[in-house]
């Protein structure tokens, strides 16, 4: 058992950090919307899915079939990043306008918004399964099957630590996630709009009295959260190279868990929760087998919530710290 752990801990850590980085980026969307509206946006998983298909769409339009290198690779990745962030961010804004704002204007209960979120989620999944995958991606009557993505660059080992090979794709995922987190942190804490977001999160009524435009803040929150899901979507598409209409579901559940684990409403908590969840899953698998990884992850979640009901870092977006 101990031998297993020693021989597997290195690769598990790298794999766990890479999956955790993707969880964390998606978790940001849940946590930001919750921080501002006290709403769990269950359609966020489909925002992620839309971003991944947008990336694939651009890859197909560019006619990429062979792995790229050098400048072409960097340029392509940046273009794909813009495309998937725009698609996910845009979709999140539309979702807010169509599924949430009408309810908010009528003062509907949060439960109504939750049902609206679930409805939007099912609608978007079926839209892709029935229309977009068969028509736009030209896979007639295969809307529910996986769609392969061509390889963007060859996997290479950049360096090794002991028996652990650190690959270029893992470095890219972890690096991109950390950079996005830092940018977001600066945005929320150092900019005027960021201050508006924090003010709305603390006390919406007072924020309005102070001249904050709530609608615009909510829209910004959805846009930024969606764009982060778009980053995750590109990284996912690049790493796993298979898309399906329901890929968002499982990842959405994991990311939501990560957000709660870190402290929902807290941006740094989302990063911490995501990475922690990825590591717990992979380390737990060493001892118990991969079929137990969800059991282990949720056991840890329950234990954390027993002792810290607001998550590891607490709900601090409202206290203007994150």
């Amino acid at each position: 058992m101990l031998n297993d752990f020693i021989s597997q801990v290195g690769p598990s850590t790298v794999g766990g950090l890479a999956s955790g980085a993707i969880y964390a980026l998606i978790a940001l969307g849940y946590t930001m919307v919750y921080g501002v509206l006290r709403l769990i946006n269950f359609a966020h998983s489909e925002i992620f899915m839309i971003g991944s298909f947008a990336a694939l769409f651009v890859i197909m339009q560019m006619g990429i079939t062979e792995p790229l290198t050098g400048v072409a690779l960097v340029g392509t990745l940046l273009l794909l990043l813009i495309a998937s962030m725009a698609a996910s961010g845009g979709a999140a804004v539309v979702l807010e306008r169509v599924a949430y704002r009408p309810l908010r204007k009528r003062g509907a209960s949060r439960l109504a918004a939750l049902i609206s979120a679930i409805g939007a989620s099912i609608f978007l999944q079926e839209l892709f399964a029935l229309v977009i995958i068969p028509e736009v991606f030209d896979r007639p009557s295969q809307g529910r099957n996986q769609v392969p993505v061509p390889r963007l660059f060859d996997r290479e080992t950049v360096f090794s630590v002991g028996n652990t090979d650190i690959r270029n794709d893992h470095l890219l995922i972890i690096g991109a996630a950390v950079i996005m987190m830092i940018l977001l942190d600066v945005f929320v804490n150092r900019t005027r709009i960021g201050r508006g977001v924090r003010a709305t999160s603390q006390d919406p009524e007072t924020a309005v009295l102070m001249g904050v435009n709530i609608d615009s803040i909510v829209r910004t929150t959805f846009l930024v959260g969606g764009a982060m899901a778009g980053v995750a979507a590109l990284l996912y598409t690049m790493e796993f190279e298979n898309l399906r209409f329901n890929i968002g579901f499982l990842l959405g559940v994991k990311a939501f868990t990560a957000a709660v684990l870190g402290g929902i409403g807290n941006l740094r908590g989302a990063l911490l929760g995501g990475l922690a969840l990825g590591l717990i899953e992979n380390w737990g698998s060493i001892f118990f087998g991969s079929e137990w990884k969800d059991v282990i992850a949720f056991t840890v979640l329950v234990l954390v919530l027993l002792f810290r009901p607001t998550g590891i870092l607490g709900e601090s977006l409202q206290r203007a710290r994150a």
Partner: protein
Amino acid sequence: MRSTIARLGGVVAAGTALVLGLAACGTEESPTGAQNGDGATTLKIGFMGDLTGANSALMIPPSQGAQLAVDEFNAKSTNVKVEMVKYDSQGNPDQAVTQAQKAVTEDKIVALVGPGFSGESRNVGPILEQAKIPSISASATNPALADNGWKFWHRVVANDDVQGPAVADFLVQAKSAKKAFVVDDAQEYGAGLGDAVAKEFEAKGVKVERDKIDPEGSDYSSTVTKVKAASPDVIFFGGYYAPLGRLLKQLRDGGVTAVVSSGDGSVDKALVEGAGKAAAEDAVLGCPCLIPFGSDVPELKAFSDKYKAKFGGDPLIYATEGYDAMTSFLNAIEAGNTTSEKINEYISTIDFKGVSKQIKFNPNGEIAASVIHIYQVKDGNVTWLGDTSQAQLS
């Protein structure tokens, strides 16, 4: 008072319906075959399977194989014609029962090819048994089906108890494996097959390690880490081609070079698409089915050409078995048997070289030749290497 009248009315109505029903049964005293204009008798043979449901990709090829056999028969036979009636169960065992009752009472079929899956076979078996109608399934592989003591039930594929050990034995022999890693998807079919393979490996003295993956998941890095640490000679996956494609890709990216193998759930070109051409290369797949996949063996090529000319595509999974199942019935009819019981007697003694294998049934309805075929991905295509006794890995 009102309710009494209503009840009385109900009884009268029910009684009338009963009498009318009996009368209908009495008058419909028809022979099994119907005479048509030019003096030839037309017999109906059913085909039952999932023709429009989620797994119809598995059932359309055998239905076309069976149709091909019927068309060939009708082209040469003069005194007896055969009509193939399709029954779409959508893979639903309850719907299969309704369809079987219709086939027996309304259409009066003399024989049935199918049902396609094991669940529907379990439900339909007793109905056919009572009506004394012989059936041959081209694809139902649950071992327990043969234990029902059914006299009219047969199948032309080996059951699941044969597949796992045969594939394991083949890998041990072909790769002189000392260490194996068995992964499965924790579902009924995949875990069952994984267990059977792991058991046989251990019986042959091969050290086995195991792990399970979530068939709906995408990130299999923890499994890849385990496989890499175990450094096995062979890897077997119990499950379907979609998760295997994802796993295979991640295994190869993770630097695992051991041969990867799987069972009949993965014999599909979509495996290559999902894993990517490079990662899928050399994967070994076992199946009780014989899919020609562009083979140049003369009989298979002849079959593929005929099939392609008629349906515009290559024969895929269970097409040859569907053809052989139908041919068994047609041989019986050609020998002058026109009633279901006579046909059943005839096929219990049948022994001919079918396209997929030698067709001869054991008394319990199992095919005598329990053959497992080996396929390998070569240059992005699934190719047939032969049965476990002939196949050579390259």
